[in-house]
């Protein structure tokens, strides 16, 4: 028996070794193969003389855009526009693959090896994590205009038709009997913007007294009956389960709910002030250098700032940053007082540390005796 077992263990070990070796072999083979195939494109992009060569010689290229949930429709439209533009400009065919999910989850996927050429996420914090891991070079946030956020959004209130509880502004959320729906800031990027919007309002109306702001938030969360894990989940709770009187939501999510589920059911209420939510974009330096896609990836993000890119963003309910397009869609995006993260909170690292990490302000709101 013992002899047999030993033999078994040995065989198992030997099999494991071979499996490991073949896996490595395959891996390196694939790597050299892929780098060989992209070499012409890389050389073409690097050497200016090669750019003069006939357009047809450029090999088709594929980009992966790793994004968060509510940008699906936006990028479906934008990708079509960009590949048409790029082919016209350079003669190179580009196909863009999209990946959507919770912002943090997506960032972790890239961290664990998903080869994204560009990331377009909900929070700077999630891109900072990629920088810390060495996938993105330092200073990514100043690489493109407006803190690398080509479009912005804000946090608004979605209420039931006719606004039966008379909710106009942040303090109305604390009235007796008002139920507020917002996802959990520990698991949702959107929920962090909600929380910070309320905090910013409270600071402004209490002479920047942090203790009072914390009291405001603590009171606010006693009005929250359910904490969903993500923004879409919270929308479902409010819209389909009929729970709560007001949903704190991204402006674009609020518009989508109203348009898809009927203008006769919900109203959008703009509070007197809110936060300017800046969903940032970045090229994943390590991946584009390896794949030789830097040029097209960079152009992909830059084109978001063009008139066409900005219009697509506006059509999908994201606030444009280009003045001419801003003017054109003025009626769609009411002008309310908006403060930025930098105005009130500093960097994402500091904000996350203070408010949302374990033992931070959000935890103190819930844990008694702290």
């Amino acid at each position, binding site marked *: 028996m013992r002899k047999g077992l030993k033999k078994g263990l040995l065989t198992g070990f030997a099999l494991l070794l071979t499996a490991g070796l073949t896996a490595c072999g395959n891996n390196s083979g694939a790597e050299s193969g892929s780098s060989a195939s992209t070499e012409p494109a890389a050389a073409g992009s690097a050497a200016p003389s090669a750019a003069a060569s006939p357009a047809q010689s450029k090999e088709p290229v594929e980009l992966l855009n790793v994004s968060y949930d509510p940008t699906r429709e936006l990028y479906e439209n934008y990708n079509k526009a960009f590949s048409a533009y790029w082919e016209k400009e350079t003669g190179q065919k580009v196909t863009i693959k999209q990946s959507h999910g919770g912002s943090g989850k997506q960032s972790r996927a890239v961290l664990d090896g998903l080869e994204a050429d560009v990331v377009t996420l909900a929070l700077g914090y999630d891109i900072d994590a990629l920088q810390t891991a060495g996938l993105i070079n330092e200073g990514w946030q100043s690489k493109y205009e407006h803190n690398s956020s080509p479009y912005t959004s804000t946090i608004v209130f979605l209420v039931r038709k006719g606004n039966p509880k008379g909710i106009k502004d942040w303090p109305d959320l604390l009235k007796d009997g008002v139920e507020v729906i917002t996802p*959990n800031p520990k698991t949702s990027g959107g929920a962090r913007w909600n929380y910070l919007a309320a905090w910013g309002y409270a600071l402004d109306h209490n002479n920047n007294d942090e203790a009072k702001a914390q009291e405001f938030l603590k009171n606010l969360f006693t009005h929250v009956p359910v904490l969903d894990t993500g923004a879409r989940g919270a929308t479902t709770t409010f819209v389909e*389960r009929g729970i709560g009187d007001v949903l704190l939501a991204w402006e674009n999510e609020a518009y989508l709910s109203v348009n898809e589920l009927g203008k006769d059911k919900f109203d959008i209420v703009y509070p007197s002030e809110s936060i300017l939510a800046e969903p940032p974009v970045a090229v994943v330096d390590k991946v584009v250098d390896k794949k030789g896609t830097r040029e097209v990836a960079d152009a992909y993000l830059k084109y978001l700032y063009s008139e066409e890119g900005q219009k697509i963003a506006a059509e999908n309910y994201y606030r444009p940053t280009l003045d001419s397009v801003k003017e054109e869609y003025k009626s769609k995006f009411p002008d309310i007082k908006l403060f930025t993260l930098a105005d009130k909170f500093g960097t994402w690292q500091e904000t996350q540390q203070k408010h949302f990490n374990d033992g931070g302000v959000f935890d103190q709101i819930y844990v008694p005796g702290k």
Partner: protein
Amino acid sequence: MSVSAKATRRGVLPGFGLTMGYSILYLSLVVLIPLAALLFNSTGLTFAKFWSVATDPRVLASYRVSLTTAAAAALVDGLLGLLLAWVLVRYRFPGKRIFDALIDLPFALPTAVAGVSLTALYSGNGWIGSLLEPLGIKVAFTPLGITLALMFIGIPFVVRTVQPVLEDLERDTEEAAATLGAGRWRIFRKVLLPELIPPLLTGFALAFARGIGEYGSVVFISGNMPMRTEIAPLLIMSKLEQYDYAGATAVALLLLLISFLMLLVINMLQRWTHKASR
């Protein structure tokens, strides 16, 4: 000598060494290496950090929620599963095969789908929830809702472990007991129950262990309120959201440990009852 003779006895599968080798290989790739990787992830963790994570009031509260709801669900599943298995084995009725196949559906269904549909049914304006709420019974977004979701995903474990044992039970023994004058309750207690306790315990343990780790179906119906309806797997997710891999691993390791101890105890209990009934 006789032992080695046993091992080399020609079985259906060729070569003990080779088959054992393959078993070890697959077990390594699918179970052992991932678990080792989990341990490896926690190497960034000092004991002090582990302890502060493990004793954080929110983490403790989530363990309490996870353990009590999983235990309650497994208990109910034990009783309900026995009844279901009994009906399926001992009676004939139209649609029995369909009924039998339905039992396995919770295995196949993505748990998130289960969570979403249960929430839709049991929330205040759902079909069932709207009937229960006037009676003062809130299901969705309470521990009761979590228990319900865990009952749903746990029920096949009990039915499928009890069913084959029931099928193997000879009816002769019951008939013999009846002819000797035993009443139905006495037959159940003295003849059936001793045979059924081991599979029931297994079913309970499996449902319980599954319930502790369940995430998908629960996050929708629990409401995720800190200190009240927040389950431990959700805290793992929220630690990952902070890129705190070590902290997430700490919570996960503790969960694994609890489940493992639980399975071990039940295994021992099972052996003991098995011996006692012989």
